[in-house]
């Protein structure tokens, strides 16, 4: 397989649906590709052709979010039933948040210096804690193709969002905003002094900028990354862009 690795080119080729990517019988069609007659492997998306080992993939440039186990996502409450919240998670299904996955069950002190001990809070009380339109950072507990994904908002970094700006990018471009080993996101954080949370479903939360100008520039930079996600040498260009724009806009 050494030969195949050497074929990889730095600028990846753009392919379209139905295009024959390869006729090599040893290659296995991976993501976004299928094998047809005469060992022809064809692509299913408009995307970038990529060969990794013995697998040939097509990385799509646009698409929907598919919930997968353990993903951290941002959702908005759009409906309530007596026993669960329903969240819009930018997928084809609604996310389900049960109240006992949303709030802590622990010992409570009623006050007056006396602890009452553990008791289970009723669902009715917990269903009134969150309102319609509230935004939450959640984690996917179960995700498959047939059932609606169940969520939880208990854990590190999870919970209700109370301030900040949320922007939206296509979910396939999220890996580019994070960068290789988080290089891009650390660059953005260091240069613009903001808190950034990137959710897997294409929503990005921006908080706590020093000034409003910083947040404004950060949003522009993220949209630039989104636009040029399929190009190479992106981190250098974004660094250059931010330094130039800082001078232009008079930001320190």
């Amino acid at each position, binding site marked *: 397989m050494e030969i195949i690795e050497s074929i990889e080119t730095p*600028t990846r080729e*753009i392919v*379209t*649906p*139905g295009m024959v990517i390869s006729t090599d019988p040893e290659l296995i069609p991976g993501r*976004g590709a299928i094998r*047809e007659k005469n060992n022809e492997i*064809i692509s*299913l*998306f*408009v995307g970038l052709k990529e060969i990794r080992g013995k697998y040939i993939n097509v990385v*799509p*440039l*646009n*698409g*929907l979010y598919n919930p997968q186990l353990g993903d951290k996502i941002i959702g908005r409450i759009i409906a309530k039933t007596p026993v669960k919240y329903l969240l819009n998670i930018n997928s*084809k*299904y*609604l996310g389900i948040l049960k109240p006992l996955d949303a709030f802590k069950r622990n010992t409570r002190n009623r006050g007056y210096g006396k602890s009452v001990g553990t008791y289970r809070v009723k669902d009715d009380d917990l269903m009134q804690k969150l309102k319609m339109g509230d935004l939450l950072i959640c984690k996917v507990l179960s995700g498959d*193709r*047939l059932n609606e994904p169940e969520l939880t908002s208990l854990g590190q970094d999870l919970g209700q969002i109370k301030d900040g700006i949320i922007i939206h990018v*296509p979910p*396939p471009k999220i890996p580019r905003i994070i960068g290789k080993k988080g290089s891009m996101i650390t660059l953005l954080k260091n240069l613009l002094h903001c808190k950034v949370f990137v959710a897997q479903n294409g929503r990005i939360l921006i908080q706590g900028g020093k000034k409003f100008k910083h947040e404004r520039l950060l949003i522009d930079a993220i949209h630039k990354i989104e*636009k*040029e996600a*399929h*190009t*190479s*040498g*992106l981190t*250098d*260009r974004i660094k*250059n862009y931010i330094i130039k724009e800082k001078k232009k806009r008079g930001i320190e």
Partner: protein
Amino acid sequence: MPVLVPEPHDPVCFRKDGKRLDGRDVDEPRPFSCEVGVIKNAQGSSVVRHGGNLICCAVYGPREVHPRHLAKPDRGILRVYYRMATFSVHDRKSPAPNRRDNEISKVIREAIEPVLFLEAYPDSQIEVFIQIMAADGGTRCASTTAASLALADAGIPMRSMIVGIAAGKAQDKVILDLGDKEDKVGQADVPAVVVMKDKTISLLQFDGEMSIEEMKLGFKYILKGAEVIYQKQLEALKGKYEAIQLQAQKESEEYQKMVPKLTQEKPLPPSDTVVSEKIGEIKVNNDEEVQKPTKELKKEHKKETKKGTKKPTKKDIKKETKKVTKKKTEEIAQKINGTIENDPKKENDKGAKSK
């Protein structure tokens, strides 16, 4: 005697030089252009100009089905809405969908369905909205090409792109891609949709009279015209991203000129093989020296870095001050006593206390 009503259109479709009225050859399609990603709110969208037709298409989904009872548990459903604008034709068209609109919606849906993987989206739907802004004959063909472009732009998996184009017959001649007048005056009309991967046909309608040989000639023309339009489709889909790639390359080149020091690579040291060749008999093995970072080494490195980065606490400062004082006292004691014979620590301590 029945009254003879004059024909609304002149039946002549050809010039004296043998070309068609708009100057085309028999097997030449109308000018075609398309664009992708036009509507911001849609997941995928396209605009197609095919002759006098101007068609706008938007795709949403896969998403939930409303009403719920239409959903199928084993596969997704495709819904196509073909609508003509009131100003798209000479007479005002009623904005309400009529029989013709519903029929063409169904026909286009059945032409697209074999290309999609609907079984991958159970309990959900994909919606395709097609709006005719200007009509000039062959709208159903042009709208299938627009729909396939929009679906590809939306990132929905497809087996192949599809292209719609019509053949026909006018004044006893087989022609390709009929205009509005040729459609109304001509003897036959064969709209078809071609699946471009394996050149199969997913929609075929026929209206009029044609012999089998004429039909075969018509199919030849259809495949030829479809190939021309397919190339334009690919250009539009790739062009959206390739233009950005070129611009990005220019920017990165500028950046490299701006910062030459960072981009320049340091010259590599001469490798071991070169040394052995020069010396001849002596072979240098640096295998022992160049150790790969094992887990233990990494741990040690971490510890060192942690120690270095830690902020000094009050205890540490006290320890350091004690060490410094000890050293100083030793030096002073050496100066005074010369060499120290027995129990240097005690003597030093005494000296320090006395001072």
